[in-house]
């Protein structure tokens, strides 16, 4: 089975809004060994001018994941989940994610390539807040390992 080249350019429907929870940010910060007071302590975050705790830089993957699930679960994608490894990742922020944000993500497949036995799929997820303002663009390249 190989990745369907017709995925290129496909735009998936926006996923239902993701409400960023304070405890989720703290859980994520702890899981990535962050001890930043801004991520863990609402008082420290407020003192620095934020409404609530501030998410670590890679937190956007939690929301992006919902869009990647759409891609991986597409019946015609040709992607075998157990063969997927992450090739590269980028996050480009307009502002930090803060607890209380309601983020809506939309995924576009921007590249599909086959190299050797492996396939590479690049997906760009744009996350906007409740006002429709851009927060972060998360770009992932997934490598689908071929049969050995």
């Amino acid at each position, binding site marked *: 089975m190989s990745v369907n080249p017709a995925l290129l350019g496909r735009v998936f429907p926006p996923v239902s809004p993701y409400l960023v929870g304070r405890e*989720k940010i703290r*859980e*994520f*910060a*702890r*899981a*990535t*060994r*962050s*001890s*930043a*007071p*801004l*991520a863990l302590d609402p008082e420290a975050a407020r003192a*620095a001018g934020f409404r609530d705790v*501030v998410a*670590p*830089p*890679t937190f956007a*993957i*939690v929301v992006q*994941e*919902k869009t990647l699930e759409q891609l991986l679960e597409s019946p015609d994608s040709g992607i075998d*989940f*157990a*063969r*997927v*490894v*992450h*090739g*590269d*990742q*980028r*996050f*480009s*922020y307009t502002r*930090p994610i803060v607890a209380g944000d309601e983020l809506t993500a939309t995924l576009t497949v921007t590249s599909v390539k086959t190299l050797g036995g492996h396939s590479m799929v690049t997906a760009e997820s744009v996350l906007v807040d409740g006002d429709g303002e851009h927060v972060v663009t998360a770009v992932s390249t997934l490598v689908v*390992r071929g049969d*050995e």
Partner: protein
Amino acid sequence: MSAALEVGQVVADVTVTLSRDSLVRYAGASGDFNPIHYRDDVAASVGLPGVIAHGMLTMGTAVAPVVDWLGGPEAPGAGGWVVDYQAKFTRPVVVDPTDGAEVSLTATVAETDPEAKTARVDLTVKFADKTVLGKAQVRVAWA
């Protein structure tokens, strides 16, 4: 951001041990339940040398000391934050069920722009003496 920040300056230099427990914890926190990160049989069946860390766990853990530095007393000013962060996953981090995996991280200032109040910090992230993140670059900005 003051002029105190210099190219070549090391802002973080740490070693972190990732255990199978770290992987389970990260799976729950992130929602990434790909079984190659917790099942030896599945990892082996797709040709991996063992259960591997989520690339995003390595990437997330690697930037944490930079975020800590930005919020700490060594930072060149208040209000610094990560505007852009990218990395390539060049080698898997194989996590031994008993000993885990020791990952070393060095964060070095690669570029500064005092007018724009931004800087680029490059991360060197190694496991078993080999680089596991390629082109790992953090762009930071000060308000």
